[in-house]
Structure formats: C-alpha cells, structure tokens
C-alpha cells in the first residue's frame, strides 16, 4: 500500500490517468443512475431531436435519448474490451510460454497456427465467425481473440527464449524442478510485465475493434446500446442529424483516449526505457520543414482539387442504390435493371394507375375460349443493331426466356408462375404473335409488360456475353460497360425507333451507402438520384433547384403473423395489432419512407377499394391494454411482462436491415413492450430459414404486391391449401377467405375482381391477420441540369427518353 502511494507521488501523470480510468469505470457502473432517460424507451414523437436541455445528446430515429444510450454503451464497450483483452492475454500468453519453453514440435505447431491466424484478414474472419455463431458481443470477442492472440503468444515466447538458456533456469532444472513449476515460477513472472504492458496498451485498440465489428452489424445487436452500432445508425442521418454520429463518436474518442493514456503511463512505469528525464540538446531540424511542407501539400491538394463543370450537357449522371449482378433479362430479376437503364422494352407497359398501355405492341385481344391471345406488333420497331423487330424475333425472345427459366433446365421458373403457354406462333407478314395459354390468364397484358418479357434480338446477341455486356434491345440507350459494384456506362442507341435520344452517354453510379446519392446530387456529380433516403429528402426539399418526385408503388412492407404460435390467440393478436401506431412510425421514424395504409394488405393508391375498408383494430393503445387485461392476459409473476395461460409470452420478431425495416421493427417491438408484451427483435444474417422453419411469431416481408397489375398472387399468401407452406408463411386458415379466393380463378370481369379483392382484404382486417408497415414510397430526384424526370408507380422505368437536359 505504501508502495502504491509512492508510485502515485512519483508519477503524477499515472495518477491522473488512473483517476480518469476510474471515472470511466464509475460511469459504466453508475449508468443507470446517471442516465436521464431509459435507453430503450422509444417515444416516436420525440424522434430526431437535436441536443437540448431535455436530451443532452439529442434523440435518435426512434426517439431514444442518445445521452443515456451512450452511458449504457460505456458498459458494453468497456466490459467487452476488458474481457477481450483478458482472454487474449491468457490464451496467447499460455500458448507462447508453452511454445517457447518446450520448443521442438510443440513450438513448431503453435507457431504455424499463429502464422495461419496472422494471415487472416482480421475483419473477414470476425465477420465469418459472427455469421456462423450469430452476431453478438460474445461471438465478436471470440472472433477477435482468434486473430489477436498471436501477438501475445509471440511476445511471451520471446521472453521465454531470452531467459531459457540462463544459468538459473538450468540450475532450477538441475535441482529437480518440474516443468510446470519452472513455467509458473520463472517464465510467467518474467513474461508478465511485458504482456501486461501489451495488454494495457491494447485496451483502447480492442475497444475500437469491437466497435468496428458492431458498426458493420456483426457485433452487439439492437436495441442494446453500443457505440459501434450507434455510429452506424448515425451514419444514415449524417446530413440531417449529425449529432447522432458525433455524440457517440466523441464518447468513443474520449474513453479510448483515456485508456490509451493510462496504458502508456503504465508502460512507462514498468518499462522505463521509453522515457528519459534528460533533455536533449537540439538543433534546428530539416525534418520540421519537411513535415510542414507535407502538411501544406496535403491541404493544398484538397483545396486545389479541380471540379469538373460540364459545358454542354451530353452525359446523364445517375446515382443508384441498386444494380443487378448481370444484364441478362432472363436471369431472375435482373430484367428489372436492364429495363430501368433504358435498354429493354416490352410489348406493353404499365401506366401509373395500374392500367396497361401499348408499347412495342399496338393491340392485343383474346379468343372466346380465353386461351388464345393475338398480339399485334408495331411495324416501325428496330433493334439497336438496325435489325427490324419481326414477329419471329419476338417469339424467339420469349421462347429464350421460357427455356432458360424452365425448372427442368435448372431455372427458377419465374415467368412460368404467371403464365405458361402450349403454343406460340409468329406471323411476320401480318406482324402478329399468337400465344395459346395453358390456363385462362386474365392479366395477360400485364404479364407481357413484366420486365423479363422484354424483347431482345436473340440472333443478333449471339457472340455477346449477355450476362456482362447485355443483349441487343430496342430501347433508347445501349450498354457500353458494366461493373455492377461501381458503375454502368450506356450510350445513345443510334437506331432508336421512337424519336430522339437526348443524351450521348449515360453514367450510372452505384452508390448504395447512406446519403451518398443525395450527396452526389448536392455536389453535382449526379443529375438524377434514385431513391434517396427520406431524411435526405427533407433537406433537399428545402432547396428549389432539386425536384423530388415521390410515389408509392405497389411494394408493401408487412409482417407474417405465425398463427401456429402464441399469436394464434385471437385476443393477443388483436391487442398486438392495436398496440402499433403505424402512422407515426411511417411519418416520423422513417420520415415518410412508407405510407401508412392502416394495415390493409394492398396499397391505398391502387384501385382495390381502399376507401371502403374498415379496420376494427386501429391504433388504440389503451384499448389494447384493456383487451389484454379483460382477457386475463396479465403479468402475474412480476417480471413486467404478461403471461398467457401461465406461460411467459415472448414474441419472436425477425427483421431485416433493408429498406429501413430495422427501424420499423424496432419501433414496433418497443411499442409492444409498452403494453407489457415481451418482444425480442433480431436481424439474423439470413432469414430464409426462419420463414420456413417457423422460428418466428412475426417475420418481416417486403414485396411487390401487384407485379403484373393484379394482386391475386399476393393475396394467395393468406390462402390455405396443400402447398401453403410455400407462401402461406403465417399458416392463416379461413374458409370464407378460401372460398372467395377460389372465385377469382377464371373471373375475367375487372369489376367483379375488384369487389373480391376488397372483400378479401376486409376478411384479413377483421381477423387481424396482417401487421402492416405501409406502402413503400420511392422517389426519383433530379438536379437543376435535367428535366423530364418522373417517378413511375410500377418502378420499372427510370432512365427514359423523356429525361432531357434542362432548358
């Protein structure tokens, strides 16, 4: 004890830093006392508030107090880092001591393994392990340990090697000491100071490693507050709510600095070589000039960066979030992108209200037996290689698609799910194509408008690597180069059949991260941005020079409710539905990325009777609570959560990171907790299995509800038959629904179909069989240098010939 006091007196800095470390530890321990709010409480109406009196660090997207979350995050990060360092120290130290002392084969094996581990890129291994074991704090500790122990092993080994041949070790051996005695009494104490120094100076680095893993999503899972994860959340809002990023960032910085300072001072004490009291006499050093010069050069580089300014606008710059892996329209969903980039065109196309318009075809009709369709082609259509689009070529294109996608050929059978034909004939003279379907296909026109039915010149594309270079199509732009991770280059189709093509070249830049697309618009490197995030929208909307065209398509987000699980209980399920304030979530938490449809399965803006629907379980928190209380679903064991029939209720909610479903899921989970229902929300690496293995009570879904302009397929998700595990993920079974749905088959009258759609939706609403997120709104934004940009509801038409340079 006296020695300790002396230590502090002699080394003032050590004392100061130790005090700081203790402060940090105190903060971690006392977090519940110091926090101003509950870090998990998510009052949505308080979302995204800047720092103020009420919330020292502001609030995040769910209304949670960032200051409190940072405090609690201290616990996770500090304890995690300390445990991590301890584990690495013990493991690496042990292996190093053993390797150094015993030498020979043991040494060789351990060193070879350490070579292997060193050769691993640390992050990749960590991600891989997190992927296997599941993302969590413990697993990221395991992952980082696996790559980091080698440094300690080598260090321990080298300390052993230094003294192994000393006389006193030989003396210990000669006097009969056992190996483990020597290791424990001689080798370990000798290695300990160096290793401790290493460990102590590593705490800060380990904290950062853990934060990095969490930043990427492989570590601590939400809603547990953890700095790395908070930083990744903040990144999405960097433009509009920078405090979400900088406040946790400052916390990380502060704590890591404290630990680094402390570690350094510990090292200085144990290994005093690194500090001398002697002052060195100095002369003016040229180094200083070189260093200054470099600094100046760096800043100069930044300042003098030339910014390109376009003289006459011949190139259209597009910033997109998504690209496709290939450019082959027959490859699953890649056709969407081949069409979006302005290359591919179909026989028909979707108007914004869902009706079908002519495109490459001028007319279509069906025979009396409802099986034979005759499609009349326009006669002035040419491919980009100058070849005329004949009926034969149309047939070739469609046949190619069906052959590639044929399940018997290993294809996924996608178009077959919508329409199969027994015969397809071309009449080049008349310019018609006849298709005889196997079953009456009511929405044939809609089927033909689907992107994979795009018409390509099969013969003319031979010799091309279609997947990477794209096929020969009819659209205004053709492919020049394709790097799906980075950019796609298009050029004007000199042989375009339908008028002038405004731009010489189109440059499509993949910028999937956060606000990258909005930023590209801002700095002028993009003229058109696809789907900027809602928070960025708010900022751009303030500036008149930007056009933001928002629309809701037929893509809806919702949850499948597992009727075979605890939510099969009607009362519970109804309460769950009533507890969700979907409107606030849509408007505030995701800032309008989704448009609330009051739980209706189909989007509001299509013609499916939305206005006549009634939701008996609209948002009413008190009613939900009352419902549960009256039914006796209450908390009897005092843990704060309700039980059902004596069993604890835990609602397993599987979410996803895309399209902000993580924000929505977390908000919903928080709202369920508010009425006393325990809900555990998680985002696994892959949710495919959960859906089929039924490991969920709620699982997210995000789907285009009317791909071909008809929602029958989507509504099949609530249809019960022998194959229902394929699509009826919630195991919903309602005879009335089934009977109504069966009527759809073969019903060609659109008015009658609309009525059935309406009734089907009402049944679902009455059964509280759907927990909706809303209709996913998307947008296209344009900068001041272009005009004619429009956001189509069917989301297939992005780069069109209508986009021209601004006047």
């Amino acid at each position, binding site marked *: 004890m006296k020695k300790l006091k002396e230590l502090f007196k002699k080394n003032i800095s050590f004392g100061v830093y130790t005090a700081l470390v203790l402060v940090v530890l105190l903060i971690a321990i006392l977090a519940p006392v110091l926090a101003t709010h509950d870090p998990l409480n998510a009052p949505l109406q308080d979302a995204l508030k800047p720092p103020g009196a009420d919330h020292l660090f502001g609030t995040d997207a769910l209304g949670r107090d960032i200051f409190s979350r940072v405090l609690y995050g201290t616990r996770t990060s500090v304890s995690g880092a300390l445990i991590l360092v301890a584990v690495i120290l013990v493991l690496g130290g042990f292996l190093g001591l053993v390797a150094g002392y015993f030498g020979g084969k043991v040494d060789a094996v351990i060193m070879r393994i350490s070579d292997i581990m060193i050769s691993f890129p640390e992050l990749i291994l960590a991600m891989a392990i997190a992927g296997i074991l599941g993302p969590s704090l413990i697993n990221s500790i395991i992952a980082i340990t696996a790559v980091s122990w080698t440094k300690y092993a080598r260090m321990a080994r080298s300390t052993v090697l230094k003294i192994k041949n000393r006389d006193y070790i030989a003396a210990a051996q000669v006097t009969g000491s056992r190996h483990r005695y020597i290791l424990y009494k001689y080798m370990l104490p000798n290695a300990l100071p160096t290793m401790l120094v290493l460990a102590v100076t590593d705490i800060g680095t380990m904290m950062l490693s853990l934060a990095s893993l969490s930043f990427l999503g492989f570590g601590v899972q939400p809603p547990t507050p953890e700095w790395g994860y908070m930083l990744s959340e903040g990144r999405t809002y960097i433009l509009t709510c920078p405090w979400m990023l900088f406040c946790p960032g400052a916390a990380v910085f502060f704590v890591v600095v404290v630990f680094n300072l402390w570690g350094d001072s510990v090292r200085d004490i144990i290994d005093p070589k690194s500090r001398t009291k002697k002052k060195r006499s100095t002369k003016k050093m040229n180094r200083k000039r070189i260093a200054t010069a470099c600094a100046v050069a760096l800043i100069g580089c930044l300042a003098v960066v030339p910014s390109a300014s376009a003289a006459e606008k011949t190139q259209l710059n597009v910033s997109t979030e998504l690209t496709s892996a*290939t450019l082959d329209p027959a490859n699953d969903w890649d056709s969407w992108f081949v069409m979006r980039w302005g290359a591919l065109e179909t026989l028909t196309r979707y108007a914004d209200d869902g009706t079908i318009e002519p495109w490459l075809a001028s007319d279509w009709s069906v025979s009396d037996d409802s099986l034979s369709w005759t499609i009349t082609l326009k006669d002035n259509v040419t491919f980009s290689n100058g070849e005329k689009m004949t009926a034969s070529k149309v047939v070739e294109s469609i046949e190619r698609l069906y052959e590639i996608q044929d399940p018997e050929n290993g294809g996924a059978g996608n178009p077959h799910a919508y329409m199969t034909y027994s015969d397809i004939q071309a009449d080049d003279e008349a310019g018609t194509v006849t298709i005889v379907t196997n079953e009456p296909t009511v929405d044939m026109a809609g089927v033909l408008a689907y992107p994979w039915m795009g018409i390509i010149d099969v013969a003319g594309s031979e010799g091309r690597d279609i997947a990477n270079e794209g096929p020969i199509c009819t659209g205004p732009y053709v492919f020049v180069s394709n790097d799906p991770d980075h950019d796609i280059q298009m050029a004007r189709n000199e042989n375009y059949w339908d008028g002038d093509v405004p731009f010489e070249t189109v440059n499509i830049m993949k910028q999937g991260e956060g606000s990258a697309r909005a930023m590209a618009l801002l700095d002028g490197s993009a003229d058109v941005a696809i789907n900027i995030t809602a928070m960025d929208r708010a900022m751009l909307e303030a500036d008149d020079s930007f056009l933001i065209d928002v629309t809701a398509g037929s893509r809806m987000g919702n949850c499948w409710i597992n009727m075979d699980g605890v939510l099969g209980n009607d009362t519970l399920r109804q309460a769950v539905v009533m507890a969700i304030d979907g409107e606030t979530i849509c408007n505030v938490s995701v800032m309008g990325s989704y448009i609330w449809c009051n739980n209706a399965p189909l989007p509001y803006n299509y013609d499916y009777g939305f206005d006549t629907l009634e939701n008996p379980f609209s948002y009413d928190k008190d009613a939900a609570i009352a419902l549960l209380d009256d039914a006796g679903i209450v908390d009897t064991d005092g843990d704060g959560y309700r039980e059902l029939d004596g069993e604890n209720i835990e609602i397993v909610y599987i979410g996803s990171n895309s399209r902000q479903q993580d924000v929505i899921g977390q908000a919903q989970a928080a709202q369920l907790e508010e009425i006393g229902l325990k809900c555990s929300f998680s985002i696994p690496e892959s949710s495919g299995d959960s859906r089929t293995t039924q490991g969920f009570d709620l699982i997210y879904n995000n789907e285009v509800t009317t791909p071909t302009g008809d929602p029958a397929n989507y509504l099949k998700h609530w249809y019960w038959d022998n194959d229902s595990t394929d699509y009826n993920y919630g195991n919903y079974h309602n005879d009335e629904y089934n009977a109504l749905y069966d009527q759809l088959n073969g019903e060609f009258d659109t008015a009658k179909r609309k009525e059935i759609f309406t009734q089907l939706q009402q049944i679902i609403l009455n059964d509280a069989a759907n927990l909706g997120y809303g209709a996913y709104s998307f947008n296209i934004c344009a900068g001041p240098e272009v005009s004619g940009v429009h956001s189509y509801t069917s989301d297939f038409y992005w780069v069109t010939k209508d986009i021209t340079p601004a006047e």
Partner: protein
Amino acid sequence: MKGKYIVKRLLQMVIVLIGISFLTFFLTYLAPGDPATAMYEAAGVTPTEEMLENTRKSMGLDKPFLVQYGVWVGKCLHGDFGESYSKNQPVLKLLIEKLPATLKLALLSLAMMLVISIPLGIYSAVKQNGITDYIIRFLSFGGISLPGFLVGLILMYVFALKLRLVKVSSSTLGFEQMLLPAVTLTIAMASKYTRQVRTAVLDELQSDYVIGARARGMKFNSVLWKHILPNAVLPLITMLGLSFGSLLGGASVVELIFSYPGMGILAVNAVKTRDYPLIQGFVLWIALIYMVVNLVVDISYSYVDPRIREAG
C-alpha cells in the same frame, strides 16, 4: 543457404494456404442460410421453396462438404477459383479487377503515411518533451484513439459536405476518389507509426554507441543520419510488411464508407451475401499476398541488417 531458406518458406506457405482454405471452407459450410436464400434476399424478392430448390441445385449446394472442398481444390490448381454466386463471374477475374484500385489506395496511403510519420517521429524523439513533441504526440495519440470509420465519416462530413471541397464520389477512378479514403487510412496508420518511430529513435539515442560517438565529437546530425536512423528504421520494415498486407486486404470499413470499389467492399459484400467462392478466393489471395510480402521483408531484412547478414 539462401536458396534453401526460401524453399523452406515456400513450403510453409503452401501448408498455411491449405490450412486457411480448409478453415474458410469449413467456416462457410457451418453457417446458417445459404447463398440461394441470400441471393433472393438481396434482390428484395421472396422466392417460393421451389425456386429455392432449383437455384440450390444449380449452385451445387446439395453435395457433401468434403466433395465440395475437393472439387474446389482441384479447380484452384487449374487456376479456376470458382464463380461468384452473387456476380456470376469468375472469382479470379473479380479479384484481379479490384486489385489495382486497392493497390493504388494502399500505396498512396503508405506513401503519405511514411512521408508524415518518419519525419514527425524523428523530430518528436529528438525534441523530446518539447512543445512540438507534445503536439505531435497529442495528434498521433488522437489518431489511434479514433475508430477508422469515424475518421472517415468526419472527413467526409467536413470536407465533402460542409466545405464542398471534395466530391463524395466521382465516376472515374481518379486521384480525387482516392483522396479521402487514403487520408482516412493514413491518419490511422501515421498515428501508429509516428509513435513507433519515436520510440525506436529514442531507444537508439540512449544506446552506448551513440553516446560514444557524440563523446568522440561527432556532430549530432551525422549521428542521426548515419547511425540512428538506419538502426531505428529496421524493425519498421517488418511492420510495413504487415501493414501493406492488411491494406491489400482492403481496409474494408473505409472502402465501405466511401463506396471505394476495392477488394475490401468485395469482401464485406461477399460475407454478407454468403458468396462462398468469393470469400474463399479472397481469403486465399490475402493470405498469399501477406506471406509473400513478409517473405520479401524477411529476406530484405537479412540483407539490410549486417548482423544477420554475417551470420548468414
């Protein structure tokens, strides 16, 4: 002698490569979910079970583990590292495509880092405990205390968004696009290296031969250039080797933030989408590069350090 040493090291490399490839293969095999489901998820589509099965078959995922591994090894020996699931292109081609970008970024970052940290480290050591020393130590300290991605984000915020000095992204792979990611990487590395240089030089300054040389009247400058620097910089060569290797792996997080199309993003996406062939190819390549770099470093070390050379 040298020849035998190199051969031995090459043999070691082969063993390590085998070990790593088996490990990665094993790891990815254990993971839940598979590329088929991941692929559909990435497209935002919910496939039916039938579609999934079909896709699985076409990917060859239904064969037993060891068979898959054996097949893969056989192909590798022929130069075929498989085809990426998510991009339908040969893995080798993808890696080679991204290599120049990461290479440029790595070299630029290393160059900038050396230019900064060696002079600063020396200066800081020589002027120990002076004001400049404290400033440099303060700055380098800050550098290692910030997570790399935070530095990147701050830089992006300040320079790209607020000051509008730099474009966040550009269509060409030019210097402009490399600048911010390189600076981010440089800051993290320079902080570490400046401290190392400082420590190394400080150590040398206290050794007997320096005191002896100065006692014999040698000018401090010459002592610095002729004796201290060469000795202090020696251990840094090894560190450089390691840093370069990890840079080549793509500073994943930094690349992610800046959407810089290098190998790092490739790797992160590969892990997220369970693109097994790409993951394996990537890990294999990184390990190979790492070991080659270290071998080169070790050999050049023996040439540069006379003590080792003589004993050779």
